[in-house]
């Protein structure tokens, strides 16, 4: 049996036997899902408690009362109770500035003391001066703000229409002038909402990050452990450092592939039984898109090899994980960058900046993947040499090229570094090792 295989087998079984591995198989997707779903849920969360508000109406046009009436249609979920409770409407004359001041002050106090959630101020001539209506609150809520805005707009429009004496039924005018809610469709006529693509991109890239970073560090830790326990010298008296390094990287890599294979099997199971699930067709088109799956696996494997080679390099030059932290920091930045600029990439997946960044080998697995997720589902024809697939192929080729260079460089440093105990080498010393 080739020695590479012996090392491979040990590294593989050491990982697969661990409890953490089995837990990880199920926990990672769960965590990823939680990461993306929980914020979405929080965003949409509907309270089952009613919200109290007050209104100061100086308009003289009963805007306050009309507004109160318009809020009656909002109920607490699964009940008949109103969601908004208008505690009081203070109807004032236009010139009652002193009384306005007094009420305004006491309502402010109630807001501060959290006795009241909102109060709406409608000043004179609000029907044509927008700034004369405003809402006072300490806790802005996206949904509530939207509802108030819509209802107040309707009320004001009605007043304006009535005042302009247009000879048409007010309701039909409101229907005629109804605002458009613009939705997007792709070239195939399918519609994948932006949020679905956005969250999928983050899930895929998140898994990529987790595996590359997690298993890459495992390679590093394994090298450090062998240095610290001094078993390293026994190993290199039997196998070449290059075989040892390759055995480690492939052994741990095979463990990640096992993990992904299990996910793939679970995924296929879901795919074939998907009629029994209530599947969002948009999610379906992303998760079960062959282009996305193929590039996900290509980038995951190549990205893992690239990064784990670097981690093996780090492991060989340091003496402890603490020392390694300094080296890991820049790598962490490289890996986290896509999360920071992801919002830009997904909005402009084809801009020069996005394309350029996605061609940098260290960023390709994450940024190119984001672009693939955003563009691939909209493709009408598939070509290996153009469009996003062509670009992703170039990205993949560049990663492979970098892997070759990195392995060459690492193997030079690795064989010296693994037998250096004690002092952490300086960069000039490390460069010298390449020439040994």
């Amino acid at each position, binding site marked *: 049996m080739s020695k590479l295989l012996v090392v491979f087998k040990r590294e593989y079984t050491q990982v697969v036997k661990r409890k953490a591995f089995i837990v990880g198989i199920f926990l990672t997707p769960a965590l990823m899902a939680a990461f993306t779903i929980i914020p979405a849920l929080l965003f949409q969360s509907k309270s089952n408690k009613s919200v109290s508000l007050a209104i100061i109406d100086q308009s003289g046009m009963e805007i306050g009362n009309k507004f109160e009436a318009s809020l009656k249609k909002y109920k607490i979920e699964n009940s008949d109770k109103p969601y908004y409770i208008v505690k009081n409407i203070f109807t004032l004359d236009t010139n009652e500035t002193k009384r306005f001041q007094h009420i305004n002050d006491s309502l402010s106090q109630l807001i501060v003391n959290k006795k009241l959630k909102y109060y709406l101020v409608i000043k004179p001539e609000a029907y044509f001066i927008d700034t004369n209506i405003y809402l006072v609150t300490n806790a802005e809520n996206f949904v509530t703000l939207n509802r108030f805005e819509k209802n107040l707009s309707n009320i004001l429009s009605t007043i304006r229409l009535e005042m302009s004496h247009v000879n048409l039924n007010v309701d039909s005018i409101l229907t005629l002038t109804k605002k458009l809610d613009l939705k997007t469709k792709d070239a195939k006529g399918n519609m994948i909402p932006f949020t679905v693509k956005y969250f999928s991109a983050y899930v895929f890239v998140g898994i990529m990050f987790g595996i590359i970073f997690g298993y890459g560090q495992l390679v590093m830790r394994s090298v450090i452990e062998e240095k610290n*326990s001094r078993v390293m010298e*026994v190993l290199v008296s*039997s196998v070449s450092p290059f075989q040892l390094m390759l055995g480690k990287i492939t052994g741990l890599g095979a463990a990640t592939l096992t993990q992904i294979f299990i996910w793939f099997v679970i995924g296929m199971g879901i795919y074939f039984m998907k009629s029994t699930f209530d599947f969002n067709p948009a999610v379906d088109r992303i998760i079960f898109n062959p282009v996305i799956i193929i590039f996900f696996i290509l980038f995951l494997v190549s990205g893992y090899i690239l990064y784990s080679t670097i981690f093996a390099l780090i492991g060989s030059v340091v003496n402890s994980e603490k020392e390694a932290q300094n080296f890991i920091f820049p790598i962490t930045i490289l890996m986290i960058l896509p999360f920071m600029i992801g919002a830009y990439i997904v909005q402009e997946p084809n801009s020069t900046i996005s394309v350029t960044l996605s061609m940098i080998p260290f960023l390709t697995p994450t940024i190119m993947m984001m672009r693939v997720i955003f563009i691939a589902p909209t493709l009408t024809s598939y070509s290996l040499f153009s469009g996003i697939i062509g670009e992703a192929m170039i990205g993949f080729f560049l990663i492979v090229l970098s892997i070759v260079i990195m392995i060459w460089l690492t193997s030079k440093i690795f064989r010296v570094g693994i*037998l250096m*105990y004690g002092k952490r080498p300086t960069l000039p010393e490390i460069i010298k090792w390449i020439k*040994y």
Partner: protein
Amino acid sequence: MYLKLDNIRKEFSGKVAVNNLSLEVPRGVIYGIIGPNGAGKTTTIRMIMNITVPDSGKILIDDQSVKDDFKNQVGYLPEERGLYKKMTLEDILIYIAALKNYPSNKAKKNIDYWLTRVELEKYKYKKVEELSKGMQQKLQFISTILHEPDLIILDELFSGLDPLNIELIKDIILELKRSGKTILFSTHVMEQAEKLCDYICMISRGEKVIDGRLSEVKAQFGKNSIQLEIDGDGQFVATIPGVKKMVEFNNYIELQLDDKSDTNAILKKIIEKVTVKRFDIVEPSLYDIFIDMAQVPVDKINKPEGSNHV
């Protein structure tokens, strides 16, 4: 000649670790590389193992340059010891043997024999971390010889072993030699080499001081010396005619004599003044030879303890 080092040299960032070192190890002998800490022993051994590459010079096995599968025929015990803490004794022994291309079914048979031999059979399925330090040393020693290597290289073999285990390992080494294996070991403790070796090579500051068959080295050095244990103050002994040099140890005195001095006459002079408990005429110890030849500061090497009978 089985193993031959021809003029090897190694520098580490300008510092010469090994300089023009040549030595010849015949098959089936115990060969000791002796020298103080930092003399270049470990570097030499690492070069034999092809872990580090010499800057110049050649290393030959049976007059041919070292090939890749050479590593499979060598058992190597490094100075810095350690094994995977989380593996069981059986697993790690099979793994290390597999790294030498040794089939696992044969390894399993040998494991039972050797574990029993070093009294670790009860721990076969225990993890390495559950063993005491001394037990781990024994385990590592058998991991070195399990795959039946032709050449066994032991760097600072006895460091970290208690006297009982030293005896046990010595017995095994002598047994291995009888079965035709070649054993090369390094130590900075001269007496151990003296007790075990057929051949020696002394090195100091990266250079060879003297080498050859132990008996020949001693004969070449020639002069005998006297070891003396007395009651009372022995300072006067140094002034007796015929005594060239006196070295005081913890519990005895060693005298180096002029070439033609009469040992009987010297003994007579001594009993006139003090009671003699022991009077031995001995061959020169490796320690004496080393001090004489290498001219290194005495505190750099370990003084032998107790007497030095050969």
